[in-house]
């Protein structure tokens, strides 16, 4: 039975066409996936239904009647609720305050009657917060949600917030619930829980629309799939009739290889040695305890663990951002046989090192700079004639983050809020590239040519969808912003590259592109630390996996010889328990 129908919806933002002539229909009581890559216009389209955007042309029908949805309130009036990717909750409020927000007395009365299942006999209905909390609890019991009405949003986990958003919509009595990328920030267990909720809602006769780019989830949960690409509607298929490969091909528009390539090259020498590292977090609690490991060149070391097991603190400690720490972190700069440069050392340091006999000429004879003028030395260094005998061993323990960065230890942390860390939304692509490199240029005037070249290269190589290079970054879709962020870090030719959740929220094509880029970096000799969530990817991409559990190392395993189950066990194992 046709329930909602889009007819020739077109939505344009400035120069970007987000949706062009999209038409399809949604049946009552089904779970429908809207599948598409980032920037394919799926969120925009459903935002039209949710009342956030107004279409530029085209019509929306609900139950056969044309409707105009001006605001989220209009959407609710038509029984449509939306859970956005970035939750729309007031952080300073309690759960129940968020649930009843914006509801009038009359609306609450109707809701009470619906939950009671009978018209209220009372002439006056109390609409106090506590009364509403009782009704919300009653409804949650029906669906099997845990609900603490007085818990503040800022005390909630991501998953709790999402559940609250769903409760909020259900409390308002929606028939249709739109979930925008609901699994993007959830753990495996939380995703399982969410899917149970979705199934319960379906049993209850609700229509659920899931916006996603994850093929396995589409297969698992949905009845039908609408595929979108580049703002256009491609096709609708019954989930049981297609396999993941076909869906991926429809989504991307060409055949794509769903295998992750891992080049088998032997690791080169030691690159980073972490000994007895203990880190306290900002509240002074122990976040990491006695961490010991060695990272090699040409290696991808995966870090696995449930969220907040100390992944963030580990990366921050290495990059010099975590201040409250003990233990040694040693960086072995692969300098053997390489020329010394003025990039990290000034002439004084070079002279001192020469005194200690650290350098040799190309023919192997030792370097003595005694009696040479500064001009002569500068010339020799600039020509690359002075070479290191051995690797440089640098203690990172007390170095500033900027010094560590300059040594070639790059951290690309992709946070949930991509624009908050790393990129400036209101600046254009070129200027964002410049943010990392502006210190390098000479003189006070910024030189934009290099940044422009870099931006051009990243846009081309990573297939970033942008109208042009002078577009504001905030105008790009989330996935494209992320590609820029990762691309910029990789482009700086790091010696150690640390990436955290680099594919979070990215579509298949971009994810595989990122995996490929990381593997290429590994081939070039870079040591890579990859903090990831998806165990399948960790197993396929990395060489070794370090499993963190409660801030301690639960084990370091060889990715080629282990299984998902074993890592899962290590992740949940408490150090004390496994010893016992």
């Amino acid at each position, binding site marked *: 039975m046709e329930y909602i129908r889009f007819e020739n919806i077109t939505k344009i933002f400035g120069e970007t066409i987000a949706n062009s002539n999209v038409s399809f229909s949604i049946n009552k009581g089904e779970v429908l996936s809207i599948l598409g890559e980032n920037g394919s216009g799926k969120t925009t389209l459903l935002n039209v239904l949710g009342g956030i955007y107004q279409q530029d042309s085209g019509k929306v029908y609900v139950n056969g009647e044309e409707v105009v949805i001006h605001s989220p309130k209009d959407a609710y009036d038509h029984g449509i609720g939306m859970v956005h990717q970035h939750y729309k909750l*007031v*952080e300073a409020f309690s759960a129940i305050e968020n649930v*009843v927000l914006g509801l009038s007395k009359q609306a609450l009365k109707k809701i009470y009657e619906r939950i009671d299942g009978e018209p209220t006999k009372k002439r006056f209905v109390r609409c106090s917060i506590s009364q509403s909390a009782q009704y919300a609890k009653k409804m949650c019991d029906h669906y099997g949600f845990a609900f603490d009405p007085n818990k503040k949003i800022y005390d909630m986990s991501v998953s709790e917030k999402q559940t609250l958003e769903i409760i*909020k919509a259900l409390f308002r009595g929606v028939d249709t619930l739109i979930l925008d990328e609901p699994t993007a920030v959830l753990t495996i267990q939380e995703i399982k829980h969410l899917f149970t909720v979705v199934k319960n809602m379906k049993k209850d006769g609700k229509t659920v629309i899931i916006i996603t780019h994850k093929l396995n989830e589409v297969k698992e949960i949905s009845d039908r799939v609408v595929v979108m690409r580049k703002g256009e509607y491609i096709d609708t298929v019954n989930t049981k009739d297609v396999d993941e490969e076909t869906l991926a091909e429809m989504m991307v528009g060409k055949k794509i290889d769903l295998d992750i390539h891992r080049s088998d090259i032997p690791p080169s020498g030691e690159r980073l040695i972490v000994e007895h590292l203990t880190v306290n977090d900002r509240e002074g609690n122990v976040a990491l305890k006695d961490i010991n490991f060695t990272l090699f060149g040409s290696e991808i070391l995966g870090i696995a663990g449930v969220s907040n097991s100390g992944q963030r603190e580990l990366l921050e400690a290495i990059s010099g951002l975590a201040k409250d720490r003990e233990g040694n972190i040693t960086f072995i700069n692969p300098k053997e046989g390489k020329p010394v440069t003025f990039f990290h050392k000034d002439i004084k340091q070079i002279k001192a090192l020469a005194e200690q006999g650290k350098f040799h000429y190309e023919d192997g004879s030792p370097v003595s700079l005694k009696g040479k003028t500064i001009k002569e030395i500068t010339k020799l260094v600039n020509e690359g004639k002075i070479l290191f005998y051995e690797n440089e061993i640098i203690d990172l323990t007390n170095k500033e983050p900027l010094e560590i960065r300059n040594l070639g230890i790059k951290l690309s942390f992709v946070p949930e809020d991509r624009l908050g860390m790393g990129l400036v939304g209101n600046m254009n692509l070129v200027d964002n590239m410049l943010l990392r490199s502006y210190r390098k240029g000479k003189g006070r005037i910024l030189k934009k040519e290099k940044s422009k070249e870099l931006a051009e290269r990243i846009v081309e190589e990573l297939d970033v969808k942008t109208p042009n290079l002078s577009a504001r970054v905030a105008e790009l879709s989330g996935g494209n912003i992320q590609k820029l962020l990762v691309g910029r870090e990789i482009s700086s030719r790091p010696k150690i590259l640390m990436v955290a959740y680099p594919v979070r929220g990215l579509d298949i094509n971009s994810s595989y592109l990122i995996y490929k880029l990381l593997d290429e970096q590994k081939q070039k000799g870079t040591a890579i630390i990859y903090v990831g969530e998806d165990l399948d990817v960790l197993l396929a991409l990395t060489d070794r996996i370090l499993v963190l559990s409660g801030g301690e190392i639960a084990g370091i395993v060889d990715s080629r010889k282990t299984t998902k189950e074993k890592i899962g066990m290590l992740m949940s194992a408490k150090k004390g328990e496994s010893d016992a």
Partner: protein
Amino acid sequence: MNYVVSFLSLAIKFATVFLFGATGEIINQKSGHLNMGTPGIMYLGALGGIIGERIYLDSIPAGAPLNPFMIVFLPLIFSILFGAIGGAVFSFFTVTLHCNQNVTGLTLTTFGVGLACFFIGTMDTSRMPEAGLAMQHAFPNYAAAGWFGEIFFSQSWFTYLGVVVAIVAAIILKYTRVGLNLRAVGENASAADSAGINVNRYRYISTIIGGAITGIGGAFYELDNVKGMFNVADGVDAFGWLALCIVIFSMWKPLIAIGASFLFACLSIAPTFFAPYLGGAGYVSYILKLTPYLATVIILIIVSIYDKKNQPPANLGVSYFREDR
């Protein structure tokens, strides 16, 4: 003892100006509008108050006795009207025309100060001091209650109105559905919007109401505190800026603003009040004049370091347009 009584009584009078300004601004800021036009709106309110009073004075025969109700009522209505217009202008620019809130607010201040000063300067001041005296005491028999009466019952209707407005504002913000919705708009406008709240309407109305309340403060200062002697009235805007400080000082709570206004008033009048007793040490009065500003800075530092709970509304100063990406 007498000094203390008259000092406190005067402080309460000055606190009234602060309280209107602070309560108005709190209502503004709770909706997410960082209205830096408060000093200008105060001046506009002052202009309105004087126009109201002039209209009344011109409508009665020369030498006729002043009606104690009308002498308060007309200026009040006009100051509310002028203040509300100030708030409406601010909302029009920030909500409808999507202008930057800081720029709009500062412009409004410059505009309000200039406009009001220009017109106030051309005003006919005859009988104004008399009118100022007539509205000075809400309860003419205050002296019957001794020193307590001197301090608390000697005030004008404006003062009692100010306290009532602050208490009502506190109750509405904290305990009502409208208050919850308003706070949501200031905390997270997009969340409020998706919950079905009309963000623009809430911002418009709250800013207009806040402007109206702020305007009363300006009128009261002009009409009562300086008793219509406008040539010495420069400095209404100083009250406006300090009102902005009080908003932060009181951590966006109108009830605390009552006490904070009183404290700021004490600090403001202390230099002038104690000058005669300080003798030759004139510099002390300059130091005293500095204290309210210094106190604000210190409180700001303390609050931002140690008080993580009483933070400003999260979306303060952030304009909201639904289709923004």
